[in-house]
């Protein structure tokens, strides 16, 4: 029985914008919150924090390796640092510091990578971050979160202050469709079943959650019941939600704006392999670097749309 969608999916703020606003709110209630940025504050939106709390904002210049370890030093002396840059630079240029000064000693630094995925658009592949989830998840002790919309990002930033572990939080450049109402409850490490369903499950994070909902709506009209799960926390993974999805729907599609070979998909597959193996398909970036273009053109060309998810669903259902 087709049901009417409860989602309008109107464009809201970009998740980087939501981060910039939320970290200011957090700074007002928590005097230990400090922010570091590497000459991108007008893009990462930490400029809001810099304006309101100039003494607690540290411009690091274009030196991400140093910035990450400065954040570690601040945290080791009692501060709650949010270290921000484009995801591409925070992760790739700060990776060794993230490993050795943050993850390995378990230092409570929050790294916020903005402009993730390929939807940064015209700037092209040197600025795109399609490896960040894989790199972040390779580090023991690091919590990895990819919020889907402004509501989720705001909630995650507020929750992060009480989460006593280092985190990588992934944000996007472009306006993101609003999925959640303000009263939605979030918990780090707990997936959200956005739409119930019984024939197949789509597990997504970030911008692709909205695309998964659109795919669900399209197939609902055909009588295919699609469960949509927002796996906002990619590490630690909500393995119970995956086991349940595998058991109850018997097929899984993972959709993400990331390389399919190292993203959420491989982690979901590993979890399902351990609990209840089922046919799986993957919608994401397939072992390639993208190019310049508008975000919409790139999401179309590189297969990150609802149509790509519905195609993956049909493939997986054929194998069920």
């Amino acid at each position, binding site marked *: 029985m087709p049901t009417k969608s409860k989602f309008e999916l109107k464009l809201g703020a970009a998740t980087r914008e939501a981060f910039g606003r939320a970290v200011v709110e957090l700074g007002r209630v928590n005097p230990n919150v*400090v922010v570091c940025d590497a000459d991108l504050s007008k893009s990462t939106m930490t400029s809001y924090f810099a304006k309101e709390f100039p003494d607690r904002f*540290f411009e690091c210049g274009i030196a991400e390796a140093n910035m990450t370890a400065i954040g570690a030093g601040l945290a080791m002396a009692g501060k709650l640092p949010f270290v921000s840059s484009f995801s591409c630079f925070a992760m790739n240029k700060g990776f060794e510091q993230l490993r050795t*000064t943050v993850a390995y000693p378990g230092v409570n630094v929050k790294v916020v990578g903005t402009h993730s995925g390929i939807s940064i658009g015209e700037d092209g592949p040197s600025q795109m971050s399609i490896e960040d989830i894989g790199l972040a998840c390779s580090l023991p002790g690091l919590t990895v979160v990819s919020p889907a919309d402004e509501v989720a990002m705001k909630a995650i930033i507020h929750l992060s202050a009480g989460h006593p572990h280092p985190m990588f939080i992934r944000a996007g450049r472009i306006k993101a469709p609003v999925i959640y109402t303000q009263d939605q409850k979030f918990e780090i490490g707990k997936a959200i079943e956005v739409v119930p369903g019984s024939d197949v499950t789509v597990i997504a994070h970030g911008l692709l959650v909205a695309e998964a909902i659109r795919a669900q709506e399209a197939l609902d009209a055909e009588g295919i019941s699609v469960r949509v799960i927002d796996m906002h926390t990619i590490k630690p993974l909500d393995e119970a939600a995956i086991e349940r999805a595998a058991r109850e729907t018997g097929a899984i599609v993972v959709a993400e704006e990331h390389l399919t070979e190292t993203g959420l998909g491989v982690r979901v597959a590993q979890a399902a392999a351990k609990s209840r193996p089922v046919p799986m398909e993957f919608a994401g970036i397939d072992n390639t670097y993208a190019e310049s273009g508008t975000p919409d053109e790139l999401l179309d060309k590189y297969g990150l749309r609802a149509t790509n998810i519905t195609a993956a669903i049909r493939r997986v259902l054929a194998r069920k």
Partner: protein
Amino acid sequence: MQKTSNPAELRAIAKQIRRHIIEMTGAAKSGHPGGSLSAVEILVTLYWDVLRHDPANPKWPDRDRFILSKGHAAPVLYAVMAECGYTPADQLNTLRRLGSIYQGHPDIRFIPSLEASTGSLGQGLSLALGMGLAAKLDGRDSRTYVMLGDGEIQEGQIWEAAMFGAYHKVDNVVAIVDYNKIQLDGFVKDIMDLEPLDEKWRSFGWHTLVIDGHDLAAIKGAFTAAAATKGKPTVLIANTVKGKGVSFMENNPKYHGVAPTPDEVQVALKELL
């Protein structure tokens, strides 16, 4: 521990630290004795005379902090911390063994009273500057000291941090370069020359002092001058001798990363009576 400014007492402590370094690395059959021995007078001056610290209260918020950024010199730090009472001296010879708190490089998970886990070169200066900024934000007058290896400052991150420290006027941080002129593959001048080293630091905006890193009075004087310097961080370029105090190790690149044999341990300990 009893703090002291008495040179004879500090020299006696330094000798005991050197004996520990020889015994530890000899027992471990691996490790880095040369760059541990070169740093002894500086660490002894810090821990017994300069640092505000309390081994009975290692997380005292107002303490001064020390980071051994050249983490491979862990034996000197372990010997000093054990002699201060932070860690058990009778376990020093478990260095590098499975289950030992004395890991190959300093690891805060095994010794919580350490200020940082180090070993991947180039990172300690950034950590120290972050700690210095936090102290300023909190209005604490605690100071952070960080020892860098000479080879270590070939890492680019050091110079990112050097720019940062001067720009943000982190004057409660003191960096010490243990300039023993030798790195793993040979003499620093033959691997990647650092000269003119003092001019490099001055041009990066640091209060730069060049001292004899084995002269207790010079070391103490430099730390006093650093504490009086406002508006910029201080770096001490400490000219030292790799392997200092053991004749066959002095200025010998072999002992950067090779432990003394049992026979060599006996010879070295006789020299350190």
